[in-house]
């Protein structure tokens, strides 16, 4: 058994979004899945882009985008190479 390292991703919870969250009106599960690539690889970001690319974008900016999708951020797991957002609905 290996032990977690200092680089273990950490979790942040947005409690406000979970208050009164109710999925009673949900009626089906099948999702839509969108993948948008802005460069072929993380080590191939184009000149002029932020060092961390999309990971440099703040939570507030993503929240603006997600408002148009009708999703709220419930929690985030941040790690060096990817941030994972758990969303409502």
């Amino acid at each position, binding site marked *: *058994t290996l032990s*977690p390292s200092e*680089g*273990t*991703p*950490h*979790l*942040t*919870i*947005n*409690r*406000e*979004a*979970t208050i009164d*969250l*109710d*999925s*009673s009106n*949900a*009626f*089906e*599960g*099948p*999702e*839509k*899945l*969108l*993948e*948008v*690539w*802005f460069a*072929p*690889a*993380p080590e*191939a*970001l*184009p000149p*002029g882009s*932020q060092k961390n*690319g*999309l*990971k440099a*974008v*703040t939570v507030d900016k993503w929240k*603006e*985008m*997600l408002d*148009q*999708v*009708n*999703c709220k951020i419930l*929690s985030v797991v941040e790690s*060096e*190479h*990817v*941030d*994972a*957002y*758990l969303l409502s*609905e």
Partner: protein
Amino acid sequence: SSMFVFPHKLILKTCGTTTLLFGLHRMLSIAAVDAGFPSQSTGSIDKTQVAATPYRVFYSRKNFLFPDKQHGPHRSWKEEVKYLDHMFTGGSAYMVGKMNGDHWYLYLTAPNTTLAPSRTPEHQRTVTETKVLQVPASTAFAVGQSAWRTDDETLEVLMTDLDPENAKQFYLEHASAVAEEKYSKRVREVAKEGASVHDDTFDVFSNTSSDHSAYTPDYDVDFPEELSSQVGTEGHSLGTVVSEACGLSEVYPTTIYPDARVDAYLFTPCGFSANGVIPAPDQAGTATHYFTVHVTPEPLYSYASFETNVPARRSGGETAEVIERVVDIFKPGRFSVTLFEAKADPTEVRELGLLGDSAANAEAVERGRIRSARMDKIKGYRRVDRIVHDFDGYELVFRYYERN
């Protein structure tokens, strides 16, 4: 629903009546303005009118159960394709599977070659070549600076007609009972009262082995102040309980992935979502993968999805074993599997002379044949369809299974 943000790409997977494609304009604007990716400006001083030019776009979905209840372009595949075609040039739309059964849709654009990096510089070629020769043939192109990356693979399992008795574990009532029985009432009391930052009493796995330490929530809070709280939630704590009880946390176990972190949420009155972040244990922080799970357990439209980009060879077994572990959790009546894999760059293959070794080449072909045959034999199910699509840079294999 879930979102994964990498430096170079964004993955957004949304459930129910969400309007995913309505977020595209803002996403492209954010990529240009806030992340600095090359953009096409409309000449307006309005920053929301600036849009980054994507390198590549993929959009996919299973056929909806109730399309008339969807919003915007999401009522039909035709409308979605029209919306995407309006935004991107060079897109192609496909339907995969039986039209009168569980089929799957895909829209993708060709790679934007103006955004691809230059090929590996000559002075680095020797180094790259050395690395290539030290790894198995199947991973030969995971190194170097090539835009072609054979470690890029996405597995998606879409399951319907879940076993109703088994699906009860994704209801709040059932999960609460499990939590109380297994971890004592203290878990829920703490969740309701609020745990302080790093409050040890909130460690729902404190009575279990240390193997589970990576799944223990901690509450480092760095959300903007108006969004944040130093308090955990019942949905998250019960989500953690469910992911442990249903076996999800064993799909990528901490014995192999010590830095893995699973973030799970149990909705009220039912429904479950989980994201997993899986740093590769053997690559010193050079690669991190993800998995995501969403479940709607209601009998009339029961559904579960599992998606991951953890390369099968790093998961301690074959892709078929991962599928069997997942299917065993949800026990669907039928399910489809899509496996999207990047192909090796044929130019680089030729330049590095790897195809010159006919024995190695034959071995790789045989390995692929065995792997494919193994995928056709998922325990308890019969494979009904197998459809292969050869795209620019990728191979897609769609399989459909029904319970025996």
